[in-house]
C-alpha cells in the first residue's frame, strides 16, 4: 500500500487560518505557499473576533492530499493557531468587488438597470464614470463583470473570498480533517 493515492480531483478549496497578529506573519504564510509550490487563487486577511488574532481566508487549487499538506505546513508556522477547511455546502462565502465603469449619460440608465438586477450598488458617480460595489460569491461577481465589460471597465478591484461556517459552529471550534 505504499503507492500514492490516485489523484483525487483538483478543485477550489477554502481554508480559514487563524494566526497571532505578529509582524511578519503574513509574509510567513505567503512565503510558504510560494515555496511549497501551492497554487493560491486568493488570500484575504483581517481582524477576527479575538483581539491580536488575525483571520485569513485562502482559496487554493488542490486535491485532498495537497490540501492536507497545505494545512499541516500551515500548522508548522509558529504563529498559526488554527486551520480549518470550509465547504460551500455548510458555509457562506462572499467576495466584494469595486468596478469603475465607463458611463456617459446616454448609458447610465442601462447600467443602473444591470446594477439593480444584481442587487449591486452605485457608490460614486462622475461625469462619464461610475463606481459599482458588488458583494456575492465569485460567480455572481464574475457575471456582473462580464455584463459590464461592453460598457468599458476602467478599473477593477476584488477582495477575494471570505468565508464563515453556517450555524453556531466556528472556525476556531473545528480543526482541519475533522
Amino acid at each position: 500500500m505504499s503507492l500514492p493515492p490516485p489523484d483525487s480531483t483538483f478543485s477550489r478549496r477554502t481554508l480559514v487560518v487563524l494566526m497571532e497578529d505578529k509582524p511578519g506573519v503574513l509574509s510567513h504564510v505567503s512565503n510558504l505557499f510560494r515555496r511549497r509550490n501551492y497554487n493560491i487563487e486568493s488570500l484575504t486577511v483581517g481582524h477576527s473576533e479575538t483581539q491580536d488574532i488575525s483571520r485569513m481566508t485562502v482559496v487554493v487549487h488542490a486535491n485532498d492530499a495537497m490540501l492536507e499538506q497545505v494545512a499541516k505546513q500551515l500548522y508548522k508556522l509558529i504563529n498559526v493557531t488554527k486551520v480549518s477547511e470550509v465547504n460551500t455546502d455548510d458555509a457562506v462565502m462572499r467576495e466584494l468587488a469595486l468596478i469603475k465603469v465607463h458611463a456617459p449619460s446616454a448609458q447610465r440608465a442601462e447600467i443602473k438597470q444591470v446594477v439593480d438586477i444584481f442587487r449591486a450598488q452605485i457608490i460614486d458617480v462622475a461625469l462619464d464614470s461610475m463606481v459599482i460595489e458588488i458583494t456575492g460569491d465569485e460567480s455572481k461577481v464574475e457575471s456582473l463583470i462580464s455584463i459590464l465589460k461592453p460598457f468599458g471597465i476602467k478599473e477593477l478591484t476584488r477582495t477575494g473570498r471570505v468565508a464563515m461556517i453556517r450555524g453556531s459552529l466556528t472556525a476556531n471550534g473545528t480543526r482541519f480533517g475533522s
Partner: protein
Amino acid sequence: MRLNGAQILWECLVREGVDTVFGITGGAVLPIYHELPNYPIRHITMRHEQACAHAADGYARATGKVGVCLATSGPGATNLVTGIATAMMDSSPMVAITGQVATNALGTDAFQEVDITGITMPITKHNYLITDVADLALAVREAFHIASTGHPGPVLIDIAKDAQTAEIEFEYPDYVSLPGYKPHTRGNPRQIKQAADMINTAQRPLIIAGRGVLVAGAQQELCELATKAHIPVSTTLLGKSAIPETHPLCLGMGGMHGEAFANYALQQCDLIFAVGMRFDDRYTSAAGTFAPNAKIVHVDIDPAEIAKRIRVDLPIVGDAKNVLRQLLPLVEERDLADWLGQIDSWRAETRDRDALWQETDEVLPQYVVFNIWEATRGEALMVSDVGQNQMWEAQYYRHVRPGGLISSGGLGTMGFALPAAIGAAAGRPDCQVWVVVGDGGFQMTLQELATVMQERLPIKIAILNNGFLGMVRQWQEMFFQKNYSGSPLLGPDFAKLAEAYGIAAATIESKEGVAAAVKAAYDSDGPMVIDFRIEREHNVFPIVPVGHPIDQMIRRPKQTQP
C-alpha cells in the same frame, strides 16, 4: 537589574545553559562583543560565518544541546545562510544571532544592511527581528524553546544595534506562551495498539530508523523492539547508529547507496515500521515503486512529514522514545527464521562482492575508512562531508556509539565536515573526532584549519583525495558519456598546507601506508591531516540510478574469492 540589550542577550544565553558560541565579530555586533568577556561563555572565533553556522550545528548534533552562532549584519548574516539551511534540513537545534543596523536606518539600504529575517524565513523554524530591547529576553527564551522541541531546527534572532545598547530593567521570562506551537509527544494509544497488531501478524516486517530516534535518545528502546520481535533494522544515512551497526539485526543504511541486501529487504517486506525518518527521495528512490508489498506504519513527531511523499497506512504522531515505550509491552516475541534466513543469504552474497577484497596496491577509499573503523573500534565521532567520501564512510564505518555520525544529509552541503567537526570537538572533548572529506569539499572551508590550530582541537582529518568532485565524476561516467565537465580539480599539497598552519600531516600514496598513518593519527593527542591519494576514478557501489526502484541497483563487480 537595569541592563542594556547586549548584556540581556548574554544573561539569557547563560540562563539557557549555553557554554560555547561560534562567531565572528563586526560593526553591527560590537556592543554584544563588548560585553562578551564578562560572561562565562567560550567564544570560538571562526574564519567565515558559514563555518560558524556549521560549527553550531555540529556542536548541537554532538551534544544534543542547542548550538549558537553569532554574526554581524549584511554579509555576516548572509554567510550564515548555507549553514542555517543545512541545520533546517537535518532538524538540528540552532539559534543564530545576527546584528542589524539601527532601527532608524532600517529599510534605507544602509551600510551592511540586509533583510536577514526575510531571507531566512523559509530556512528557519522561526525568526525574530528585535527593534525594541523590551522584546529581546522573551525572543531568546522562545527561540531556545522552539529550536529544541518538537521537530528541532534553527531559529534566527536579528537584533538592531540600538536595541543592543538601549537599557531596560531585565527580567527573565518564567515561561513561554505559544498558542500555535504545541508539539505532540505521546502517540495515540489506539494507533499504537493497531501498530502492535500489525507487527505481531507480519511475516516479513522491517524497521526503518532515522535521525528522529537519535534526537529522542530512543536507541535502547529501538534495539529492544528489534530484538524482542526479531525485526531487522535498516537506517537512513542520518539514522546510522540508532542501533549498534554490529548488531546481527542491523542491515545498515538503505537507499541509493544502501547495501543490496538492505534494499532487497525493503522491497520484499510486508510491513515497514518507520520511525523518525521522512522517506527522503535518496532513501525511497521513485516513490511509486517503493516497498510495493508493504503496509507502512510511520512514526514521526512532525505531522507534516506523514504522507508527504509516501502513502502511509497507519500514522502515529509522537516522540520516538515515547511511542516505542508505549509500543514495547504490546509487541510479542516472534520467531521469523524464514525471513531472517532469506536476508542472511542476501547478505552473504553481498559480502562476496565487497570492494575490500579487491587485489590492488592502490589506496582504496573503502580500505581507508575500514582502517579508521578498526583503529577506533567504531566508537569515534565521525564527521563526513558530502559525496563519495560520505557514502564510503556510511558503508564501511559501522558505528557502535549512538550519534557517532555527523553529516549533512538533507541539504548535502559540501564543506560541512571540517567546521561541523570543530563544533563537535568543542562540545565533546571526551570523544575522538574524525573528519572524512573529499579534496573538493575540504577546499570549500579549509580556512578553518586556522580555527583548529587556534583552539588546539585534536581533530583527525582524512582527505580522500582523488582530484575530482568524485560523485559528480561518477555520474558523468555512468550517465553523461564520461564527459568530465567541470569535475577535475587541481589541488594543493595538503600536507604542506597543514604544516603551514602548524598541524601535523602525512601524505599516503600506497596501500601499505594506510594503517600506520591512521594509527599515528589515532595515537596523537593533537590534530592531524592525512592526504590519502586514492584511486582517482573509483566508484561508489551499489548505486540505484535515479528513478529506478530501490532494488534495481548497479552492484559491485563480483570478485574472485580471496
